[in-house]
């Protein structure tokens, strides 16, 4: 009994410690921003690795999600004779929710896990320690560019996801199901609000980009420097990111739309 209590206490203390280390790392990541401004090439390289290489998976998924939305939406809307509003429904669901959330989940799986594995292996093979010995701060030089690359790519990826999704919805709705093309676009234009819908969606994806990249980098930086440690950290990145994204999405949605 007391043993279990002690174990519980130890686990509690450890997770609080980990939380503390995570926030310390975040501070150090942000402190590297000034350095990053002097070396923009580091950021550009990471924008490619983290952002550009995630474009394929995000756009393909966006296309299919948009097509499915359109299919499902059409069957419901046509029951009420409101097929012309299909464009609004597809665009609103994508821009407000599915764009930021699904692309963040894909981002965590594609880019986040890669970041964790990369940093974790650099730690396991003493590359980070080697940098320290060359008087180069590994957090500033290696982690900060990756952090800002993730933070900046996420909204762009989400925007691509939504845009392709709207197109996918158009193909299915207008091309296959015979909704009026003019209505699809004009209803969308009239009813999607720049501030209410698009702006809030972008804020969400900035938050998700921040959190997912932070989690991925921290898991890599904090992992046990062994192959097992790296593999566990990679799993944790995906799981924690998914929880964080879905949980934060609820909180943000409540704050933004729930008056």
């Amino acid at each position: 009994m007391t043993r279990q209590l002690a174990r519980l206490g130890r686990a509690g203390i450890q997770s609080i410690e980990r939380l503390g280390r995570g926030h310390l790392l975040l501070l150090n990541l942000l402190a590297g921003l000034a350095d990053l401004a002097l070396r923009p090439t580091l950021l550009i390289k990471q924008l490619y690795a983290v952002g550009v290489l995630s474009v394929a998976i995000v756009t393909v998924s966006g296309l299919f999600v948009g097509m499915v939305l359109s299919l499902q939406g059409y069957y419901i809307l046509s029951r009420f004779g409101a097929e012309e509003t299909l464009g609004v429904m597809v665009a609103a669901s994508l821009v407000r929710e599915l764009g930021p959330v699904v692309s963040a989940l894909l981002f965590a799986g594609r880019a986040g896990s890669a970041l964790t594995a990369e940093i974790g292996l650099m730690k396991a093979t003493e590359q980070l320690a080697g940098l320290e010995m060359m008087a180069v701060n590994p957090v500033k030089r290696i982690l900060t560019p990756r952090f800002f690359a993730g933070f900046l790519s996420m909204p762009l990826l989400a925007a691509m996801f939504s845009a392709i999704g709207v197109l996918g919805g158009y193909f299915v709705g207008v091309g296959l199901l015979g909704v009026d093309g003019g209505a699809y676009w004009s209803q969308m234009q009239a009813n999607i609000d720049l501030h209410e819908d698009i702006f809030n969606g972008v804020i969400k994806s900035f938050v998700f980009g921040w959190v997912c990249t932070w989690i991925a980098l921290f898991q890599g930086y904090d992992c046990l420097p062994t192959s097992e440690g790296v593999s566990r950290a990679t799993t944790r990145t995906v799981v924690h990111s998914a929880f964080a994204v879905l949980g934060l999405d609820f909180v943000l949605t409540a704050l933004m739309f729930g008056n």
Partner: protein
Amino acid sequence: MAKGRSVEKPLVRIRGLRFLRAGRAIFDGVDLDILRGGVTAIMGPSGTGKTTLLKLIAGQLRPNAGSIEFAGEDIHRLRSKELYRLRMRMGMLFQSGALLTDLSVFDNVAYPIREHTRLPESLIRRLVLLKLEAVGLRGARDLMPSELSGGMARRVALARAIALDPSMVMYDEPFTGQDPISMGILIQLVRRLNDASRLTSIVVSHDVKETAQIADYIYVISQGRVMEHGVPERLLDSDSAWVRQFMHGLPDGPVPFHYPAQSLEQDLFSGP
């Protein structure tokens, strides 16, 4: 004691060092001086904490008690900015090499130069080629670290460790994985580098005979303490049976080969 040892101020001064790892004392009361301009060898059985000691000197690990001074400054009292400034004067060759895997051999050696100086690329090229020439790998400059053998990787790491012409270089097992010829060359290289630029070198090595050839002073550590220290000749015919066994690599004697454990019989027959 070597003559004049107490006169000059040591570059690294360790006093009362105590360091715990997972509750086990790796060091307990270690005093150690590294003299300027000399080659100091640190020897000891595998797993006694030689690598740990180098990391403590470099400020990558924090001691639980005691002090480590580098050029008069207590390493563990420094703020991280000052520590980084100090590290520019240290080079370290990691046991694993620790090369950056996404850069070629050339770029690895050039990395610290590019980070810390604003030299033109043509000059960097010349510097890097000279360093690579010194370790015999000028021809391998375009290979990636994954294409190197373990011994070659360590030589590249050596070239990188000396790229900025530091005032102190720490070598963690520089000779392991080298064939007899490159080993001989590397041993001479360590000595030559040391004398040519009045460097201070710390060499961690198991190759007792070879290291003793070039070392000015040797510390033998084991079980968290300095077992013995002195000039090579003195250690080779030390009074202590322990040190003699270690230095000559004799199988029989007081040095345990095994990690501390209960007796084999107990272990074999006590299990489920």
